[in-house]
């Protein structure tokens, strides 16, 4: 049987990097083919070439055995290739049917010609969407507004959109990044169904667990090259990780039991409003003790962002209290909090953590540039800033050509290392001084989108900070990360902490149900109810 899609000897060079180096890739009909690799391994480049978003310098693409030239996404769609991007390409105010018709409205089918004017034929389109949705078990309502749909449903709309344009080959780019474990499982069922009906699927991911759950074949890329291709039966997690990173990786972090001491960070009935004045954090209480990691699990958008912003002075609390080292800091400014011992690894490293056009050196002093020894009066002390940068680059293993290199040109993993270096070095300098400020680390999604090697490194750093007596609040949407690192796990859902579990006894299933809001914690009821009443009163008052 000829493969549905074949890439032979694809080479693509970008200035300074060989993004694809003679890559061969073969997708059998009706197969789910997982493509694994670290960030920057060349997966995206390869898929962009297959989808016509960029052109190979050399190499050949065959669809059903015939050589084809794919110069644009338009050509790709004509060849029956569809792509679901990691960030959805949907227009939120439009309905599902309108979104699916986008870009095809001028073709026969969705358009009727009425007295010289082309008119959108919504009814026919809706009917076809219903048929497709039914055939592949996708459960998509063509008349719903996209902005009202949950993330999982939006993803299904993207899949229907690809199927609508008669795609036989689907490329799913990190489709589970935005889903809960349960939603991911539903997606896998859909993918299985699609494959059974003859669709071929490329599934890009960096989560090893998912590869085993769904794929028929696994290919691994590293540094622009195809390292190997194997059946799931021949593979183990350790083997795949080694193929991705190019060396042995210790997946399970061995961490000593925690020795928690006095609480350093205490939060009491905290309520925080988001930009639309909606109570994103709605009566949250918890504490983090010195020498422990409290993990906050939850699907993104359940108030974790606002919680972290409130704890770092970026967003003012509506009510409640935050205490650090016993002192009330509810109304403190960001700079005050930085000086009183809070280290913050923000959720979006490129937007909030770094100035991409600045050098590594300048980014490393982003929180300390204004005081000695970095500055004398208003004059910056460059020799000291440079020495500081050299030390941290070495200590935190930041792979950079030099300290003057713009941070934006580093890989994601190294960018995150720059932030971690900046924040943890501050923490360490505090710890050296027993009378100094309490060491508190707030880490939001510290390893999102990073490669296995960097994740391993950053995880070790977090554990090390804990062992040296820091109170660590770890906010993450990756359940695996929360379960590996935390000593206690709090689950956040719709602005509340539903339950706080002991990490040693918590199970993935239990956490998943809490994250989905299906299960409520034992103590959630009594906390949640009064908080809700206050909410309404305050919103009206303000």
């Amino acid at each position, binding site marked *: 049987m000829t493969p549905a899609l074949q890439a032979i000897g694809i080479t693509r060079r970008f200035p300074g990097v060989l993004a694809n180096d003679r890559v061969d890739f073969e997708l059998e009909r009706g197969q789910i083919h997982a493509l694994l690799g670290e960030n920057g391994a060349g997966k995206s480049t390869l898929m962009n070439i297959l989808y016509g978003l960029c052109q190979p310098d050399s190499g050949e693409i065959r669809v059903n055995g015939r050589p084809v030239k794919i110069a644009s996404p338009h050509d790709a769609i004509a060849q029956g290739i569809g792509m679901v991007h990691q960030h959805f390409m949907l227009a939120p105010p439009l309905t599902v049917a309108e979104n699916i018709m986008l870009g095809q409205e001028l073709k026969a089918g969705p358009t009727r010609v009425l007295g010289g004017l082309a008119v959108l034929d919504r009814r026919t389109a809706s009917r076809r969407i219903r048929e497709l949705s039914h055939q592949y078990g996708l459960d998509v309502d063509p008349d719903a507004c996209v902005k009202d749909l949950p993330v999982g449903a939006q993803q299904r709309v993207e899949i229907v959109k690809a199927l609508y344009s008669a795609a036989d080959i689907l490329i799913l780019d990190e489709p589970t990044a935005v889903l809960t474990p349960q939603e991911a499982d539903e997606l896998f069922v859909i993918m299985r169904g699609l494959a059974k009906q003859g669709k071929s699927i490329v599934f890009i991911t960096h989560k090893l667990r998912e590869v085993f759950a769904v794929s028929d074949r696994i290919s691994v890329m590293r540094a622009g090259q195809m390292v190997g291709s194997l059946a799931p039966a021949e593979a183990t997690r350790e083997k795949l990780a080694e193929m991705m990173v190019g060396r042995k990786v210790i997946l399970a972090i061995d961490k000593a039991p925690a020795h928690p001491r006095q609480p350093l960070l205490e939060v009491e009935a905290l309520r925080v409003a988001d930009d639309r004045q909606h109570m994103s954090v709605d009566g949250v209480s918890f504490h983090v003790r010195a020498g422990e990691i409290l993990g906050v699990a939850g699907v993104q958008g359940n108030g974790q962002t606002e919680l972290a912003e409130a704890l770092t002075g*970026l967003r003012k609390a509506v009510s409640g209290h935050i205490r650090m080292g016993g002192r009330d800091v509810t109304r403190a400014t960001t700079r005050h909090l930085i000086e009183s011992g809070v280290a913050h690894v923000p959720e979006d490293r490129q*937007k909030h953590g770094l100035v991409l056009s600045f050098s590594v050196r300048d980014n490393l002093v982003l*929180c300390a540039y*204004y005081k000695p020894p970095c500055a004398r009066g208003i004059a*910056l002390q460059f020799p000291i800033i440079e020495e500081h940068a050299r030390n941290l680059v070495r200590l935190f293993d930041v792979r950079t050509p030099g300290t003057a290199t*713009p941070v934006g040109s580093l890989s994601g993993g190294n960018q995150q290392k720059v932030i971690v270096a900046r924040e943890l070095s501050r923490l360490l300098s505090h710890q050296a001084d027993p009378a100094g400020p309490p060491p508190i680390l707030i880490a939001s999604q510290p390893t999102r989108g990073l490669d296995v090697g960097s994740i391993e490194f950053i995880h070790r750093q977090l554990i090390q900070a804990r062992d040296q007596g820091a109170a660590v609040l770890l906010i993450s949407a990756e359940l695996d990360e929360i379960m590996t690192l935390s000593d206690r796990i709090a689950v956040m859902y719709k602005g509340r902490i539903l339950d706080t579990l002991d990490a040693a006894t918590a199970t993935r299933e239990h956490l998943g149900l809490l994250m989905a809001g299906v299960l409520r914690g034992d103590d959630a009821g009594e906390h949640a109810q009064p908080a809700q009443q206050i909410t309404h009163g305050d919103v009206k008052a303000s």
Partner: protein
Amino acid sequence: MVGGFFQQSSVYMPLLAIVTAFVLGGVVIWVTSGSLDTVFLAYEGLLRGALFKNRGLSESLVATIPYIMLSLGIAVGFKAGLFNIGVEGQFYIGAVAAAWMGASLQGVPAIIHLPLTVLAGAIGGAIWAAIPGFLKARTGAHEVITTIMMNYIAFRLTEFLISGPLRDPNAAAVQTPRIAPGAELWSLYAVPERLQDPLNALLVALIVAGVGFVMARWALPRLARRQRDEGRAALLNSALAQAGVGVVAGLLAFAALPALTRLWWPFTDQYDRLHTGLFVALAASVGVWWLLWKTTIGFELRTVGANPSAARYAGMSITRNIMLGMSISGALAGMAGMMEVLGVSICRCLPLFFSSGYGFDAIAISLLARNDPLGILLSSFLFGAMRNGADLMELTSGVSKYIISLLQALLLLFVAAPPIVRWLYRLRAPGGREESATVTRGWGGQA
């Protein structure tokens, strides 16, 4: 990693843009006049008018001075993420403030009056720019809109002040009173004469001593690092040595300058309008460079400009930096207006029909220079020379001097859209993403 000076895209791209603009402008002249000779005649006239005719160079420099100040102002704004289109208005307010301060004191020596008047111009511009800054910081009103509006208010306010409260009752024309001699920015021609007054010589000596001190602070530690002998190195590093250099430089200036400045008399005449504001502009561009790249203030401004979210996360105050960035930007623009009154205007006053158009050219200049202070010096001179040479070009070739505006527009187009130039010369895009000149961030995205 050798990469010569001309291999940096920040150098060759503007140069290619200039060449392309002139070639394309030549084509326009050729087509409209119907003769290729006119093209060469026009450009020859432009060059002669800008540099080689009598007082050509110094008139080009006279126009360069306000360009430098205004584009420095715009550059500071850009670096802080602010698109200050209102430099023209701040220029007017600076001019009015300086005209008022210059005329309201009489008989005060330059050593007091001149700094006061300079300060008045700077503060006037700063306040005028701080208003849109405040509006942006507090309400999120986009500075592009508010500064344009502030321009019109400034034009009409200036007219009102000149024809009303500040009008010179004794003059036939509608204008402000002539400023006191003590507030005048000396023309270079008049410097030797001015230095006859010991107080004036003292003022110059103090300025030279200050410059000497700053340069010693910069240079001596670098010299000390090369010294093997520790005693000598310590001496070079000491504050005493730095102060000593300053004092010596000041004393030398006091003693020798009046004689030295006579040396340039053969090259100038009493109609030469080039004034000491040239030194102010040069000092300002060094100052802006130092402020932006070597100080904590510049670090904050640039951080807020490059990524306001990251600045906030690092504990910087966005509000404070927007206000500060706008104020510095406005102060530089106000000083440009101040110098037009104190140094250039023939009546040494502010006439009613006072218009410049400098402010809008300055936007193009700072774009061409990519907000780099050294680049601003060069680009300002290019624009100053074109402005000055245009008259002779029109006279000798019959080509309308408004072709200069066309050239500048083409220039701006090529600078703002590097892909056009790259496509023309088959150049590959450099790897970095900081390439394209970011004019401004989205409308009202962040407050």
